[in-house]
């Protein structure tokens, strides 16, 4: 099927406003009477608060109010209510809000906040889940058993276990009995920071009429709105949330986090708006961090390479709260199979309270953590079986008729894993390695397959409001957040295709405002193209039907005899009998002025069809739209220093249908770079006392242009899916998923050393090389 507007490089509608610096990010917003807040963070990662002395701060110039958490009874969270907006009588992590100053200017607030004196009584600190699980560990939340939570999620009272998810498929013991070979290993994906260039922040304004207005650099306006309404006892309609331009997200601006803190602070000065934007250090430690996942994996296989069983146990150091991390862990657990069919599975995920900032979404959402394990193990298993690793993988790939860990049977429309693998293999591995080492370098090549599911919610939906204007141009309003990924252009191109109207005549919304925007759960899980696109197609179909209904009265024929081409509604049998679309958009006006028909504006939404909660085995319709891909790299390791140089990185994904080639390449190239950062450099480190070692861009080394691979090759397979518009699937998170295992497999190929955790820094390589020489 040929498309007119899909699959074309159309420039993004927001590019001019961004390249001129005219778009407004949160920190650019100024409001009448705007006050600024600065927040005090604790000296300890786990301690009782004995006293807070605010007297000196209150006397500082420009200070309106000093705020503490004394007596605060507010709790929040949309999965588990284990969050408080500010520390009450105890601090649980180093970035937690302890007190705040509201002042006329930011410098005034910052000067005053330093004058607050707090006395603490330190408690034992647990950074790693294993320490928090020890029998004598003190409880980070004494009352965790009492937290409200969604069905299927439950803290284990009297322990630091926030939730345990267990998935059972088949018979794990039988699987191991059938195995000729068993391999096992333990892998670690350490803490990381999404580190968008724009720091997170919020403005909250308690109005005199008892309504709340908020602005946030968040991707979840409606969750913020609903949670603020619940906490402050207001009808949801009385809370208005704006989302201005977003300077990147990558996961951590999801859910509700800093907004509750700023609301609590702003609530002390009703009538005036209060703005707070994170310093970079606060962005590292006082929003959400990522990963912190340790995966123990055990795989059984027959001599012929057929996989018989998979056992994984994941320990997730989820931080002070599990609200934002619990689903990351569930996704990591049931996707720990990677792209393979295991007839028998026992997969266990444990969310453990620890003394770090809360762990939440990070591009990839659990997949890269547990698939680092399975993809490294496939190479290790192939060695043990003395089998070609591609042959081993091919014998076990998920595909039509195969059943995932969740019990879902796949179909052709879920995409073609083998085709992706064959493309990558053809590019990188079609010839034997030209060179293994020379005077300066060792050379290696590595491969990883990957699978991604969205981890949505049963009720999650995305909505579209579509309006025909008087000239036949179209306005579209949705609740999806543009974070840089190119969502607005996807909306425009999908709408153009669905309506057969040129993209230049379609205007897509800019800011989100819950007062006007149609409801959307949140823009997560790489699901906007799929669900949002379906919503657009549905809204367009309704609009076309309305145009035809009016035209059928004008042309005096049945609606079934009419067709539509974007410009006209016309009689199929006689296209000359037609009505121009602009004459139908607001109803049709006859020569005598009498007007008939409806104004053409429509709404529609789309969910992931039939999504369910997990059953007693942890299974259910919870993956729904699967996406497969393969990645590989060619690298060099400098003998002298241990430095790893990525010469070529190759990715192929079955995305169903490419919407915009330039944008989709940009998503993949950027995602791969993020994965390279995690694999080789990035780790957010904490001392044993829970203090952060490297919460700055200088010390937390995310890649610069000098770390970019020599070349990236990006290919797409297009096996249309059933849900997304014109067969399209999402791609935002997928490019990070296979990067670490591809690199670590290549490192083994180069120097014969198996690494089980990242980042593999040049120091670690050097140490391994020196060890080898001994």
């Amino acid at each position, binding site marked *: 099927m040929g498309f007119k507007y899909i699959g074309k*490089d159309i*420039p*993004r509608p*927001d*590019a*001019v*406003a*961004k*390249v*001129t*610096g*005219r*778009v*407004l*990010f949160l*920190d*650019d917003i*100024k409001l009448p009477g705007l006050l600024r807040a600065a927040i005090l963070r604790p000296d300890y990662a786990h301690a009782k608060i004995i006293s807070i002395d605010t007297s000196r701060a209150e006397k500082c110039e420009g200070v309106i109010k000093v705020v503490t958490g004394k007596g605060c009874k507010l709790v929040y969270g949309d999965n588990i209510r284990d969050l408080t907006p500010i520390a009450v009588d105890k601090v649980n992590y180093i970035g937690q809000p302890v007190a705040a100053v509201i002042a006329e*200017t*930011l*410098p005034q607030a910052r000067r005053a906040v330093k004058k607050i004196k707090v006395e603490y009584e330190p408690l034992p600190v647990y950074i790693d889940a294993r320490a928090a699980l020890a029998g004598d560990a003190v409880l980070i939340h004494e009352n965790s058993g009492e937290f409200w939570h969604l069905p299927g999620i439950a803290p284990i009272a009297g322990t630091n276990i926030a939730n345990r998810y267990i998935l059972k498929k088949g018979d794990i013991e039988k699987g191991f009995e059938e195995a000729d070979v068993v391999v096992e290993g333990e892998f670690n994906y350490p803490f990381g920071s*999404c*580190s*968008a*260039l*724009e*720091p997170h922040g919020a403005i909250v304004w308690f109005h005199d009429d008892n309504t709340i207005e908020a602005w946030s650099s968040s991707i979840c306006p409606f969750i913020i709105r609903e949670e603020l309404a619940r906490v402050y006892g207001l009808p949801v309609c009385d809370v208005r949330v704006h989302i201005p*331009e*977003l*300077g*990147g997200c*990558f996961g951590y601006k999801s859910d509700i986090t800093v907004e509750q803190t700023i609301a609590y602070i702003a609530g002390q000065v009703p009538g005036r708006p209060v703005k707070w934007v994170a*310093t*970079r*250090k606060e962005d590292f430690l006082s929003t959400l961090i990522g990963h912190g996942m340790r995966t123990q994996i055990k795989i059984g296989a027959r001599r012929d390479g057929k996989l018989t069983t998979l056992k994984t146990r994941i320990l997730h150091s989820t931080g002070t709260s599990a609200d934002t991390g619990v689903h990351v862990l569930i996704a990591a657990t049931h996707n720990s199979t990677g792209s393979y069919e295991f007839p028998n599975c026992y997969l266990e995920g444990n969310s453990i309270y620890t003394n770090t900032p809360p762990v939440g979404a990070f591009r990839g959402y659990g997949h890269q953590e547990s698939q680092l394990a399975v993809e490294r193990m496939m190479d290790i298993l192939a060695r043990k079986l003395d089998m070609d690793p591609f042959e081993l993988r091919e014998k076990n790939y998920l595909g039509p008729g195969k059943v995932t860990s969740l019990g879902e049977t796949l179909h052709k429309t879920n995409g073609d894993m083998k085709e992706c693998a064959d493309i990558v293999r053809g590019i990188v591995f079609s010839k034997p390695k030209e060179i293994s080492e020379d005077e300066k370098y060792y050379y290696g090549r590595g491969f990883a397959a990957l699978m991604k599911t969205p981890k949505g919610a049963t009720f999650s939906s995305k909505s579209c409001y579509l309006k025909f204007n008087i000239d036949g141009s179209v306005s579209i309003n949705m609740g999806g957040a543009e*974070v*840089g*990924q*190119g969502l607005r252009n996807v909306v425009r191109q999908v709408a153009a295709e669905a309506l057969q109207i040129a993209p230049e005549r379609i205007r897509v919304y800019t800011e989100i405002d819950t007062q006007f925007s149609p409801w959307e759960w949140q823009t997560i899980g790489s699901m906007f193209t799929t669900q949002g696109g379906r919503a657009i197609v549905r809204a367009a179909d309704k609009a076309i039907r309305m145009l035809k209904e009016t035209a059928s009265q004008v042309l005096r024929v049945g609606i079934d005899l009419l067709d539509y081409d974007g410009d006209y509604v016309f009689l199929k049998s006689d296209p000359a009998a037609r009505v121009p679309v602009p004459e139908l958009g607001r109803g049709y006006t006859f020569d005598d002025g009498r007007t008939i028909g409806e104004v053409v504006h429509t709404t529609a939404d789309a969910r992931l069809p039939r999504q369910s909660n997990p059953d007693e085995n942890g299974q259910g319709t919870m993956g729904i739209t699967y996406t497969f891909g393969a990645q590989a790299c060619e690298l060099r390791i400098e003998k002298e220093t241990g430095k790893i140089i990525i010469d070529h990185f190759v990715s192929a994904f079955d995305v169903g249908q490419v919407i915009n080639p*330039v*944008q989709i*390449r*940009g998503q993949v*190239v*950027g*995602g*791969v*770079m*993020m994965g390279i950062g995690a694999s080789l450099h990035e780790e957010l480190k904490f001392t044993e006392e829970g203090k952060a070692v490297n919460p*700055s*861009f*200088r010390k937390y080394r*995310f*890649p*610069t*242009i*000098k770390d*970019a691979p020599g070349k*990236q090759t990006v290919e797409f397979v297009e096996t249309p899916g059933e849900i997304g518009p014109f067969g399209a699937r999402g791609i935002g998170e997928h490019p990070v998923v296979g990067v670490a295992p591809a690199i670590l497999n290549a490192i083994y190929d180069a120097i014969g050393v198996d690494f089980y955790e990242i980042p593999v820094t040049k120091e670690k390589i050097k140490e391994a090389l020196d060890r080898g020489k001994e």
Partner: protein
Amino acid sequence: MPEKITFTVNGTSRTVEIEGSEKLIYILREKLNLTGTKRGCDDASCGACVVVVDDEAVKSCTFPAKKLAGKEVLTIEGMANGTNLHPIQRALIDAGAVQCGYCTPGIVMELFALFHRKRDATDDEIKEVLSRHLCRCTGYEAIYDGALLARKYLSEAVDR
């Protein structure tokens, strides 16, 4: 005590009151409402706040306001001529280098300073100045391509 200083911003003379250790970024964003210049890192490591002062790319988050007297400052707001984009801006769009847009103003200003100094800057020189900027979205490929394209557009503009 506040002190009054006068300098030029995007061709217009401005006088502002400055206090203590205020930095150029604060003057631009908070006192002159030129919010196109972005704050990303607080330690001069990300480049989002780069503006051009007397033809040099500087990080406005560390540039002391006190040193501004008599200087000529160019910010992102001064780059386009009405709706006519500067060739560097056009090139970044054409190369698909704009994603979230937060690092973009700093990169435009950095490239402006580079090409102002050396219209035919080499590939390595371009890479070197871009290495002072962090971008979390693009993986740098499209930004680098955009910079090469900008060099081409600028040389064509001169030839014409």
